[in-house]
């Protein structure tokens, strides 16, 4: 998919009309993710019920690709358990880095799979993975994500 088409068909909708943007006041986990080269700066919030992600949201600012990507990500991880979410993050980052290309793995990402073509835009890879990377850090190192509450 061409860049302009990617914006028009996928990114703009989530960037201009996000569904998961906002702050969860009583979140169990809070982690900030920064992309220093771009200045994308998001904070991810999560509420857990045992191992299951009961609620999640984000706020902050950044380019359309970073914001749309994290908005789509939240859709994908709601109701999943930690392990499933971490696995999805691995799949997404593998896809964006061009390391995972088989359809079956990528299908698991549902709508977020639409960002696959960012793999051909090296300058934008970090934007696309910011939310997913932050989520993975949050779940693998909950101690970091509790300090920020």
């Amino acid at each position: 998919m061409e860049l302009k088409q990617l914006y028009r068909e996928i990114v703009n909708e989530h960037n201009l009309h996000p569904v998961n943007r906002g702050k969860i006041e009583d979140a169990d986990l809070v982690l900030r993710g920064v992309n220093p080269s771009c200045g994308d700066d998001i904070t991810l919030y999560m509420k857990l019920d045992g191992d299951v992600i009961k609620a999640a949201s984000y706020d902050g600012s950044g380019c359309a690709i970073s914001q749309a990507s994290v908005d789509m990500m939240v859709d994908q991880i709601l109701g999943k358990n930690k392990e499933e979410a971490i696995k999805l993050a691995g799949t997404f980052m593998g896809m964006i880095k061009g390391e995972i290309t088989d359809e079956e793995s990528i299908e698991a990402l549902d709508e977020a799979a639409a960002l696959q073509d960012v793999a051909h835009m090296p300058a934008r890879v970090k934007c696309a993975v910011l939310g997913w990377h932050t989520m993975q850090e949050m779940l693998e190192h909950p101690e970091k994500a509790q300090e920020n509450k």
Partner: protein
Amino acid sequence: MGSLQDFRKDFDILNSGDYVYFDNAATSQRPRQVLDAVTNFYKTTNANPLRGLYDWSMGATEAYENARSTVADFIGASRAEEIIFTRNTTESLNLVAYSYGMENVHEGDEIVVTVMEHHSNLLPWQMVAKKNGAKLVFLEPDEEGVITKEEYESKITDKTKIVAVGHVSNVFGITNPVKEIAEYAHSKGAIMVVDGAQSTPHMSVDVQAIGADFFALSGHKMLAPMGIGALYGRYELLEKMQPFLTGGEMIEYVTRTDATYAEIPHKFEAGTVNAGDAVGLAAAIEYIKSVGFDKIEEQELKLTKLIMEGLAKLPYIKVYGSKDYRKHCGIVTFTMEGVHPHDMSSVLNDDHVCIRAGHHCAQPLMQFIGAGSTARASVYFYNTEEEVAVFLDKLSKVREVMGYGA
């Protein structure tokens, strides 16, 4: 004397397709004459300079030292030994911070910089201040980007040991009053460090007239190869300073436990030098002279005026710095309402227009102006009015791509 269009023909990359290159403040392009000079050095007289006692090495030494004289003349140094070749402005400023700053700034002293500094003229001073217990003081510009007399006279005091100021801001494009600041700094007993990375390509520089004690420049922003830059230092200061890096070629005599150092400038040029690119820098300077700063400035002003007039017609664009196009040194930094600069730059790239987006290595300034990130278009003498028209046309279509109306 050719026209600017004739000069443009010397830049193969600019004639290789339909790209509009408006990121000249990050790095310029290089004309064939510069590339040929570097190649010719390696083809005809390559050997390790300053060491060998045979023809090629002596030829390499001569080419290298001639390049030093060319740089010295170009920026008005009083003697060639005052020019130290470095990799770039960043290395030049680190040399001053380590070899002068660390020795001469003590607890309770102050270092004055501006909030506009490129990180390369900020982080070395942060390091000196932290390690030696000194305080960093920031000069702040007014809305037009100007550091006023009141501002620098209120912040440069008897405690100030070093004043480090960018000659031209890489974000606003404004030329800072470095001569006036240097005069005041000297009256308070401080030395003046000028970051000339963004000025040297665009205007005639005279380090003595400015009153700079140190002046740093990068070759790659002024038609020369990447990896060659220079530091001017006042002779008396350089002579008293300790080396920055130690090793080969910078010694006089070495025993198992001790060493005495070579005379300046070689004391500050440890290791095999970058003679090939120094020759390239000298060729770049000759090229710039053949174009002439009057023509360079005339073209940059013409293009900057067109860019700023064009941007003023787009209500969703905000331009930073002075409203006067003559105070931009070819640099126009702006934001587009609702569109992140990175998306803007990516969309423009799809149309083969190259502009910079981000914090421009000046994060404290971005915080000061309240922008997380901005876009920057910067021109040089080889850019054309047609390119400005393409840039403005493509820019006016970005918001539609980003989902704002049709």
